[in-house]
């Protein structure tokens, strides 16, 4: 039987309350959102916080998907299921629905949150690749107020983020750009499993050329949520199968997967290439009204 080590439990009544608690309790305290990464880690004693601060009551402050003229703002406590079901979100960023359909299973999706996924910073976390492909930024709050961190600065390494002691992730902001679309492809061993490998792509078109393109890889090595050389190779180019093959190769060259029970390094490298091609192709088709 797996049971977490003892801890003290407290429910936050507001974001400010949660931050005050963390400030006071220091690195012995952890926030719990959906708990679907943290509780399994606590059961395995890979995490042994002395205080657990439950933020699940903070739905008014932290659970929303809001659209403004030029960006979407998503609260950190927004659950996978809500991201999956939002038609408005799927219309602007179809990559979210593509990914959410294959993140975990429906019961896990009832609990897991956007904020928890990004803060967990597991290199296999699908939403990290999604948010980075969309060039999102993260709003981090501490007692001094909010600071906004670009996605590529947010992830500092496997299981490491820009959120430091006494801080919380409150919101993710994603810019809305015209003539843009996105897509996500994942290969999993069985329904509900973590990725063998996956890739997400987002493109902005300028007439017949790609003005801006971003690709994020998942489960094929750390810090690949946005592969910068791919963006460089895409800029100003007309989409073609040759171009996709070229950037697919860049994805494969940057991938650094490990052989494990989900597959060999060679297979995952192949997937990094193929899934990059498929996601880019789909994103361009969508952005140009062909899909």
């Amino acid at each position, binding site marked *: *039987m*797996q*049971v977490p*080590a*003892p801890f003290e439990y407290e429910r936050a009544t507001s974001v400010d309350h949660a931050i005050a608690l963390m400030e006071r309790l220091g690195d012995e305290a952890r926030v719990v959102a959906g*708990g679907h990464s943290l509780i*399994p880690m606590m*059961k395995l004693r890979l995490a042994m916080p002395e205080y657990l601060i439950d933020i699940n009551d903070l739905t008014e402050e932290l659970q929303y998907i809001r659209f403004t003229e030029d960006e979407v703002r998503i609260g950190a406590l927004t659950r996978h299921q809500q991201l999956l079901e939002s038609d408005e979100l799927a219309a602007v960023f179809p990559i979210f629905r593509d990914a959410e359909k294959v993140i975990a299973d*429906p019961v896990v999706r009832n609990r897991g949150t956007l904020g928890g996924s990004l803060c967990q910073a597991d290199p296999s976390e699908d939403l990290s690749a999604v948010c980075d492909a969309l060039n999102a930024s993260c709003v981090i709050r501490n007692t001094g107020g909010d600071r906004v961190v670009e996605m590529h600065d947010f992830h500092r390494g496997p299981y490491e983020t820009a959120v430091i002691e006494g801080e919380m992730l409150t919101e993710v902001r994603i810019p809305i750009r015209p003539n843009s679309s996105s897509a996500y492809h994942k290969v999993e061993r069985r329904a*509900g499993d973590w990725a063998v490998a996956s890739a997400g792509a987002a493109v902005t078109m300028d007439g017949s050329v790609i003005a801006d393109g971003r690709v994020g890889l998942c489960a094929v090595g750390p810090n690949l949520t946005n592969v910068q050389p791919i963006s460089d190779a895409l800029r100003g180019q007309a989409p073609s199968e040759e171009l996709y093959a070229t950037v697919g190769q860049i994805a494969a060259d940057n991938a650094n997967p490990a052989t494990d029970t989900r597959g060999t390094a060679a297979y995952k490298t192949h997937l990094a290439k193929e899934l990059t091609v498929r996601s880019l192709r789909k994103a361009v088709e969508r952005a140009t009204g062909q899909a």
Partner: protein
Amino acid sequence: MEISMNINGDDVTMEAEPRTLLVHFLRDHLGLTGTHWGCDTSNCGTCVVWVDEEPVKSCTHLAAMAGGHRVKTVEGLETADGLDPVQEGFIQCHGLQCGYCTPGMMMTARALLDKDPDPSEEVIREAISGQICRCTGYSTIIRSIQWAASKERETAVSLEGSPA
């Protein structure tokens, strides 16, 4: 700490450590052993119960987090009118063999039919995709859920058609 919640319509208060998982709170503290405990790793779904009408894996949920909420377990499916149509469906269509996965399957099925009274096979398969059955090969589980769905639709139609 003192943990209070509403379980299957009854208010319950119980002393338990904050680290108590909901599945153990239900089974060991309250003797509600209908909820099963299987993989202990959030994968098999036999521990599924509802928290505020939503299926969750109770091995990955602290009892403390469920405090103040409504919890429903397989024991709460049956009403004064008899078995829930989902339970009947599992009987009619052999939706179980060893029965290990059954409580979780039925709780997910009930939640699905509350949202979607006429789910396609594909929708049913997706709904139970986070739950593992090592016996039935799933076909009879799907048929059981379809049986419950059609029985409920028939009942709904006959209620509509009955004189006021």
